[in-house]
């Protein structure tokens, strides 16, 4: 019992180390982050401004702008989680630290969850800034928004995204040259099928089927209802996210572990690939 507690303590300290390191990196690369934030705000504004050009009543225009805004913010949040977890290996390889991290006595799930925990915290800060900046710039009114329920749903959706991110994080491990790009392709495909700026009902039938296994579909549907209409945490959005999370996290760990063994067998676990 005491040994198990000591192991757990060791792992939690390791997890905090991953989060701490990423905070240091954000501080050191702060101007990159500022530039990326401004780019995201500009990108979201270009989408939300589309609502201003549609010839409808003021209330409908506000609802459409909010729908676009929720799509942009949720995608920025979930996209950053996906991106940070996916780049776990690519980042280390680029910095040249991959060998030291992978020979350190910390379990891979803890390493990957550390990246996930940081990604969620970082994503929340970015999403809050993005939401506030666009609302202030365009003047959207969201008096009924249920922010608590929206945050709770995002937290549940984050688990699935961490799991899927773990699966794509293995790509740079297997293919140092093309792995990161393949991760971006996976992220882009999820963007298309999840109804970020439109209802999934407008998609062709086969894409609608794929949208059912994307956690972003349920996060977007739920968050739109919560921000626009003040809805609570709806079970119809929660249960698919829980199921996807329960499947994707163990599957992600399995895929990553298999990829790591492949990299160790073929000598790819090094800075130059």
């Amino acid at each position, binding site marked *: 019992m005491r040994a198990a507690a000591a192991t757990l303590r060791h792992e939690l300290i*390791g997890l905090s180390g991953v989060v701490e*390191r990423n905070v240091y990196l954000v501080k050191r690369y702060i101007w990159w982050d500022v530039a990326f934030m401004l780019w995201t705000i500009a990108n979201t504004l270009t989408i939300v401004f589309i609502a201003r050009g549609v010839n409808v009543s003021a209330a409908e225009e506000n609802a459409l702008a909010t729908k676009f805004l929720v799509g942009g913010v949720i995608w920025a949040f979930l996209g950053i989680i996906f991106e940070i977890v996916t780049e776990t290996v690519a980042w280390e390889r680029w910095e040249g630290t991959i060998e030291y991290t992978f*020979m350190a006595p*910390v379990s891979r799930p803890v390493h990957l969850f550390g990246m996930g925990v940081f990604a969620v915290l970082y994503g929340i800060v970015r999403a809050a800034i993005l939401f506030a900046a666009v609302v202030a710039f365009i003047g959207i009114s969201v008096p009924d928004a249920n922010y608590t329920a929206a945050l709770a749903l995002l937290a549940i959706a984050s688990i699935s995204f961490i799991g899927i991110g773990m699966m794509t994080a293995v790509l740079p491990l297997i293919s140092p040259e093309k792995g990161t790009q393949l991760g971006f392709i996976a992220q882009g495909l999820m963007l298309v099928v999840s109804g970020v700026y439109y209802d999934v009902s407008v998609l062709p039938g086969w894409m609608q089927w794929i949208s059912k296994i994307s956690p972003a579909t349920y996060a977007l549907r739920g968050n739109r209802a919560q921000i626009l209409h003040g809805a609570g945490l709806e079970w119809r959005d929660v249960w698919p996210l829980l199921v996807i999370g329960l499947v994707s996290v163990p599957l992600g760990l399995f895929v990553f572990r298999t990829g790591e063994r492949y990299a160790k067998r073929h*000598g790819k676990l090094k800075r130059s690939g």
Partner: protein
Amino acid sequence: MTLSRIPAGSPPAVDVRDLRKEFVRRERRRRRRVAALEGVTFTIARGECVAILGQNGSGKSTLVRLLSTLLLHDGGSARVFGHDAFRESRAVQRLVNRVSVEASFFKKMSALENLGYAARFYGMTPSQTRGKLPEILRRVGFPADRAREPMEHLSRGMQQKVALARALLTSPVLLLLDEPTTGLDPRSKQEVQEFIREMRAEHDSTILLCTHDMAEAEILADRVGILDRGELLCLEPVADLKRRFGADTLEAAFMAATGRSFEDEQDERDRKELA
């Protein structure tokens, strides 16, 4: 070639038997299997310092990476303090640290930040490392006023001192040194060598030193091995090695054992670059 100096009743620090590793190389759409290590067998006793000499591509780094749990083997076995390096990798990782030719740090982070990050992986909390990190940096001769500067602003010698501090921080019982002084100025080189002596004397560390530097191997190691094209040709004290090959110097013994000198390899590389 096997040479053991094992205290009765306890496993050796390193026990490598018939260790084999191959890599697949692609050459014009063809895949070719290249042997990096071919049936290497040796043991290292606790507290011993063993140096492995070999040219580029001889398999030195592959050996270090196998013992660091960064590679999986294709045959044979490797045990570190009785733990299987491939099946009990977590147990091995707790016992081993490594200093390689590249310092390998997050470039924008400072020495203190990089060391703090490394310490967490070994279970040390911020309160435990707050006082310890400046003390360790002082011991390896790193100037305190530069501890908060990004690593990219530091010279290679300075970065290597931080790498030594990282190794010292985790108190490894087995320290793997992969050409730790390559490219360093004479003073930094001497400081690294002094550190290796300190690790043995004060921390009772076992050391596997892979190097190009014959003089370094001779002054630091209890036994010297010659690794050539993946084969360990011999592993014995320097005096025995010289006697066996009828050589006055370690370099002459190396040439006699392999049929080549390090200079031959350098000349070969130069020719290829010119071509």
